[in-house]
């Protein structure tokens, strides 16, 4: 399959801050490729380099067969970019925003209506409303429609679901899936681990480095230990107790439970006794499948210990 993005050894510094360090990855045509990582991991910087808005200090970024630095003019015709901030004209109506971006990219709303119909139909009833007066979910749909209006080969979405309610988020991912039939490659960043599962492949990114690139399921499988889910009425107390238990390797909160790994990958009655001694009863423990987040935390843990040693 054709490669849409090929990044090799990308480095970027802002003053003394190393925003990106030796980033390499490839994205194939038609993929939904996710970048998962906390705030400040370097996702936005990386996306701006892909979108020809920043020049990397080192390394090469090839997008749709063009160098993102020298071929920026050609590239800008074929990229749909949705920045992290809501970046539409608040004082223009929904329709005016859309028409503006359509003319700027040399097309019309009619011409590519089928492409955005699925998304735009949600906000079309409000097309006379000013963009600044839309709800978060609707703004996001409008921004996506605007980024898509010229049928770009590559869609770059920087944290599109941040600040959007859960229902709209689920809808949004459904729309992205539907876009695959139009052969549009999508790269998307998100701080939400649960959204990683909806990508074809994800890159875990942290502190300017890519920790791992793989299919979401494979990333879960890469978890090296047996993982246990522990539940008890008082979660906060439970985490502290589990972390102080000598046999524990890691203990992280996960929803209403705590995900724990043990040195021996097993636990025995001494754990229950230990917890009872700490005043925690009604403990339920069962083995569970690792999620992306668990793997992410494991990789981060490794990274920091490696730095500690070195």
């Amino acid at each position, binding site marked *: 399959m054709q490669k849409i993005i090929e990044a090799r050894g990308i480095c970027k510094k802002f003053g003394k801050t190393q925003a990106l360090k030796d980033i390499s990855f490839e994205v194939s045509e038609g993929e939904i490729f996710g970048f998962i990582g906390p705030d400040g991991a370097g996702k936005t910087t990386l996306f701006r380099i892909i979108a020809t*808005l920043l020049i990397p200090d080192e390394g090469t970024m090839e997008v749709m067969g063009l160098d993102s630095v020298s071929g920026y003019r050609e590239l800008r015709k074929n990229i749909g970019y949705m*920045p992290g901030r809501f970046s539409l*004209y608040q*004082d223009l109506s929904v329709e005016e925003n859309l*028409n*503006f971006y359509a*003319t*700027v990219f*040399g097309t019309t709303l009619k011409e590519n209506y089928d492409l955005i119909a699925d998304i735009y139909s949600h906000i079309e009833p409000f097309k006379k409303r000013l963009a600044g007066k839309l709800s978060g979910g609707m703004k996001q749909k409008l921004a996506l429609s*605007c980024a898509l209006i010229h049928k770009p080969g590559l869609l770059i979405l920087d944290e599109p679901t941040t600040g959007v309610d859960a229902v709209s988020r689920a809808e949004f991912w459904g729309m992205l899936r539907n876009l695959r039939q139009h052969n549009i490659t999508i790269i998307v960043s998100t701080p939400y681990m649960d959204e990683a599962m909806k990508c074809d492949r994800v890159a875990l990114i942290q502190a300017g480095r890519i920790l791992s690139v793989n299919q979401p399921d494979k990333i879960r499988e890469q978890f090296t230990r047996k993982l246990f889910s522990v539940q008890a009425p008082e979660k906060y107390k439970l985490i502290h107790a589990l972390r102080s238990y000598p046999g524990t390797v890691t203990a992280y909160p996960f929803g209403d439970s705590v995900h724990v790994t043990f040195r021996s990958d097993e636990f025995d009655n001494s754990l229950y006794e230990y917890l009872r001694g700490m005043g925690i009863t009604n403990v339920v423990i069962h083995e569970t499948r690792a999620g992306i987040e668990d793997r992410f935390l494991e990789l981060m843990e490794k990274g920091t210990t490696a730095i500690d040693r070195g």
Partner: protein
Amino acid sequence: MKRFLGFVNKEFLHIFRDVRTLIILFGIPVLQILLFGFVVSTDLKNAQVAFLDLSQDEMTQKISDKICSSGFFRRSETLLSYNDIDKVLRKNKTKAVIVFEKDFGRNLISEGKATISIITDGSEPNMATLITNYVTGIVTSFNMELAGTQAAGTFLVQPEVRMFYNPSLKGHFMFVPGVITLILIIICALMTSVTITREKEFGTMEVLLVSPLKPFQIILGKVIPYFLLSFINVILILLLSWFVFGLPVKGSLVLLLAESMLYILMSLTLGILISTVSKTMQQAIFISLVGMMLPTILLSGFIFPIENMPAGYGWVAALMPPKYFIIIIKNIMIKGTGFLYVWKETLILILFTLAFTGLSIRNFKIRLQ
């Protein structure tokens, strides 16, 4: 081209949808013209004066009638003693008291001189000077009349200087060109720099950059609406000054409009330059207002004559584009001279425009920083 027109269309939508922008564009110029024309006017009109006539004869009657019928003054009170002077001035309504000495008429005829005292409120120095000048002016003319009819002597009055420079006694003549100059540079520079930095601040510039629009299309698209609106502004101001202040354009109207276009263009390129060096709207506003408005008012010769400035300031003033436009517009509007008299200034404005454009193109970022 279609792209470009779409962009221009969007800019117009921004302008017409924002009440504040419209107020700045059209409200402020009109307000400023009227303000400068009426309020800051240096003319006297119906200033209240009180009279203390210790002589009460035919001569004093004639002089006070002449003062009151001049249109500049109105009699507020007639006083009876020196003690009332302080009281009446303190009330703040009466701006001056005119005192005729005892036996004024007799002294004038027998000795050939008599004294009028003009007592003014020194807490308003401008007004005080104006009043003394006007009153002495009136007295001088009375003196001339007197000299014409009778052979008898002359008053000890000083010649009035103000009237030589502004014979029709109209302050608006000086202010209209100044206000046009000031308004155009502020609106053009301020509005363009703000609208471009607004795109930066709201993140829409990011999307515009990742579009096939070329930098010059973005900039030109920003400039064209303001160019048209500013031009309408010029016409509005000229109409206002004609109908409200009765100030016609003496020289060629076509030349005046052409020069205005050049000046608008120059101000717009300056605004673009400001936007390329400022990251936020606040910065842009600060540079435009502090960097442009103050120097324009203080150094362009708008209020203070450049000839009177210390040498160093004169050099700084030479770097102020408004200075040249004021010269041009005063020449065309008031003196009625033609292009031959302002070609140098026109050339300088063209050079400014080219320099600002060049710097803007060099500074415009096709990427983020």
